[in-house]
């Protein structure tokens, strides 16, 4: 029983980083209606910048965090300019493949900058785990959960209580209609893209600092985890992304402790496959899809 609860708690904390990844993904997909495969590598580029600076300049954790976030935002801007801005709404495939091409670019640039497979990343907190009754909490995981909650709250505030958020929501609802009523859609989409990349940077910093290392595989890892969490929760839904991330974290932790890492990944992908085939809306997306279908029928 204690193991069960401990694993669930660990899962929630790991899941909070997945939730952040999915949140960024969903913001990009919601506004663009196109998939950014280079999302994980964007974050990786930021993380590489951070670890490079910390190795060369010996700066502390907070400046590194700032560098990771700014780096991810800048690379995100590059991806948006090259892979999304030049295409209209129709070229879904072109954007996707183009973002994949940029993924390859970023990965190679990162390995050229730091040729070793495994690079040390400055850890954030190295204190012993906090004991609470029979349960243990790693301090950096707790921090991850808190930061995720704060970021999710801030995103909520930004989406529902600012002019920018209103713009984002109108673009998500209907891009052309938004354009017609005078929303600067291009700028809103760019800002949403950069915001999403910075959120990814925050997640990337927390994950890399928790692991104490970073490898060139991080980009693919972040893209797949973010995608699974987003699709589990429901495409383009902000609460869905958070819920999907937490669910993925909890399920993975339990699967890992029961069957080991291979079966853990098998279960994560199997779950995604089952959700997509039987319940394509995800956890929170179903109502939205049903509504869209009803609208289609009436038209």
């Amino acid at each position, binding site marked *: 029983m204690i193991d069960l609860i401990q694993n669930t708690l660990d899962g929630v904390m790991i899941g909070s980083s997945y939730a952040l990844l999915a949140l960024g993904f969903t913001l990009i997909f919601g506004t663009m209606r196109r998939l950014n495969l280079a999302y994980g590598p964007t974050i990786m580029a930021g993380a590489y910048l951070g670890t490079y600076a910390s190795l060369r300049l010996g700066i502390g954790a907070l400046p590194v965090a700032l560098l990771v976030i700014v780096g991810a935002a800048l690379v995100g801007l590059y991806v948006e300019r090259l892979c999304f801005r030049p295409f209209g709404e129709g070229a879904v495939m072109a954007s996707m493949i*183009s973002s*994949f*091409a940029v993924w*390859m670019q970023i990965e190679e640039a990162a390995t050229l900058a730091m040729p070793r497979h495994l690079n040390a990343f400055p850890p954030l907190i190295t204190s012993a785990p906090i004991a609470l009754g029979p349960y243990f909490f790693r301090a950096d995981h707790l921090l991850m959960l808190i930061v995720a909650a704060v970021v999710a709250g801030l995103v909520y505030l930004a989406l529902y209580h600012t002019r920018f958020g209103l713009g984002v929501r109108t673009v998500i609802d209907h891009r052309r209609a938004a354009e017609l009523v005078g929303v600067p859609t291009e700028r809103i989409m760019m800002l949403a893209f950069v915001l999403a990349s910075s959120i990814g940077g925050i997640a990337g910093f927390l994950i890399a600092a928790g692991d104490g290392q970073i490898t060139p595989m991080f980009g693919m890892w972040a893209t797949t985890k973010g995608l699974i969490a987003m699709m589990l929760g429901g495409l383009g839904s902000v609460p869905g992304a958070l819920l999907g991330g937490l669910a993925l974290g909890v399920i993975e932790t339990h699967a890992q402790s029961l069957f080991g890492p291979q*079966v853990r990944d098998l279960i994560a992908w199997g779950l995604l496959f089952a959700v997509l085939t039987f319940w394509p809306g995800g956890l929170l997306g179903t109502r939205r899809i049903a509504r869209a279908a009803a609208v289609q029928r009436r038209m």
Partner: protein
Amino acid sequence: MDDYLVGVLSNIGIISFVALSAYVLLLAGEVSFGQQAFFAIGAYAAGMASAMLRWPLAPALCLGALIGAVAAVAVGRATLRLTGLYFSMATLAFAEMVRIAFEIFTLQVDIGGSRVGPNGPDGFGDIRYLFENEITSIQYLCAIYVLLAMVLAGFFMLERSRAGRMLRQAGTDAVLAELQGVRVVRVRLIAAAAAGALAGLGGGLYAHLLTYVEPGNFNIMLGVHSLAYGLIGGLGTAFGPVLGVLIDIGLLESSRLFAGYRMIVFGGLVAVLLIVRPRGLLDERAVHRISTYVKGLFDALAARRLDRSLRRR
């Protein structure tokens, strides 16, 4: 020809099969991230048939293609109702499940005193049909390209047939196609089966060429690359994906022109290319222009011949 060149050419031929497999589904309007799964299934099935059951090469390759097609139909039944990103993600999830399943799958038999068969993460080695039967790498290269030529000829006929038009119709506008009596889901299912068979065949060829495969060969990178080949080379003709493979493997990987910076150059090239031509180099318009030009040449030739024969009288 030296061995290196033969190796590169064989590779180009084999990867073309996966690229064509993704291309069939692109024509049907579905973006699959998962064709590498059928490539893997074909590789393991054909390899097991020839190395463990001691089948000759041809039936082993056919078995790989057949199992690839059957698996594709089974998955297609579940996933082809989905469209867009949902379909892409479902195929990716399936492909990753297949890859991890091969990481776990172990089945070895005793052949001539050694253990042969898939061995989990250590892969599947000793697929030695080519050595045992003294087939040279040049002969095998010819076999690959004969098969590829047959597939391309098949595409050429398909594009001029009713079935081919239905396929493109289903891909361009599914609702409109449905209204005109095209049963879109069925067309897509047949396309998925053909795509599975193509990938399975390629996988069988791949396993026998390398004599060794491991689950890591069939990861998401292969899937997205095979999609990208079609989009770089062009969606107007089946030569498009092959051109894409030729550009990537033939020009960039093998020439070592940009050693160390290859992906940076290639990635940037692809991104810029897609801005200029979102449906690839040989897109529908280019193909139409080329075919009109060629037709014009033939017409002019025929007219001249007619002219000459009239004058002779």
